[in-house]
């Protein structure tokens, strides 16, 4: 597949980090910073989204309950969101993040994809250790809530005659 512009193994994590920070700040008034190291404990809740089309992938966001609760408080403008509202907020956030990520990948590479309605679950159901090889980005919020953003490596990049290949693993 010929790409309009090559992408590197570093481009995608950098883009994901930028989008996480921008969307959370502009949409939910939450500031996050990317951590250089891994988290000692994986946050207990997660939301996932599958991507399909010219490439298959998946994105998972693991987060502390307090983070998703705060997200719901802001988006629903209420002090005590229900569990259903907490899940809705998490899913809508990942929906927006994923759409912007796929759109940016398309702008750079010309490769289209779509995504499917997200799912919310407990980390114990899909622990990160069980996930195939991919990118893991760790974040801490302005209230010390922890996040792990995972996405599968599924895109092949080309630079002229060289191939800077990120393994294609397909979706879970």
């Amino acid at each position: 597949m010929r790409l309009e512009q090559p992408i590197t193994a570093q481009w995608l994590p950098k883009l994901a980090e930028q989008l996480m920070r921008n969307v959370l700040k502009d949409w939910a008034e939450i500031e996050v910073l990317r951590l250089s190291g891994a988290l000692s404990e994986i946050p207990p809740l997660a939301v996932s989204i599958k991507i399909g089309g010219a490439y298959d992938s998946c994105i998972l966001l693991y987060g502390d309950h307090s983070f998703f609760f705060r997200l719901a408080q802001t988006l629903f403008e209420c002090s005590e969101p229900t569990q259903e509202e907490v899940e809705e907020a998490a899913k809508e956030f990942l929906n927006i993040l994923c759409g912007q990520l796929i759109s940016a990948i398309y702008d750079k590479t010309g490769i289209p994809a779509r995504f499917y309605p997200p799912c919310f679950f407990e980390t114990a159901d899909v622990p990160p250790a069980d996930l195939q090889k991919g990118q893991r980005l760790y974040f801490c919020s302005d209230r010390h809530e922890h996040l792990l953003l995972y996405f599968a490596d599924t895109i092949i990049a080309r630079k002229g005659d060289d191939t800077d290949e990120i393994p294609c693993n397909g979706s879970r």
Partner: protein
Amino acid sequence: MKYRVMVVDDSKITYSQVKKMLQDSDYEVVSHCRTGEEALAVYEVVQPDVVTMDIVLPGMDGLDAAKLIRERWPQACIVMASSLAYDNTIDAAVAIGAAGFLFKPFKKEGLLEALRSAIAKKAASNSPEDEV
């Protein structure tokens, strides 16, 4: 009299935000559907002036739902909404006769402008042709 808006989105957040953004405007949300199938059933009853339709929905996607609504009610005025903001998606929306496209997350001004533009397009297409 306010224009009647039907919101089709599986997210209660989008519905709640649209409703809030349209307070004190010329538009009021009269219905919220969470699936394309529901939208088809409710459209017949509600007959809104304009529909905002999310593309990614459980079951039937928003583009298919919009296409079916337009086939049954050719005068239907539908604004597609999505966080997917690239040519293929927009082209697909144009192909099914969508009156506009909203990128998520949208702001109040963008929503109002999209609705105004969609209503204006609908009014222009309903105008009788000038007699020769």
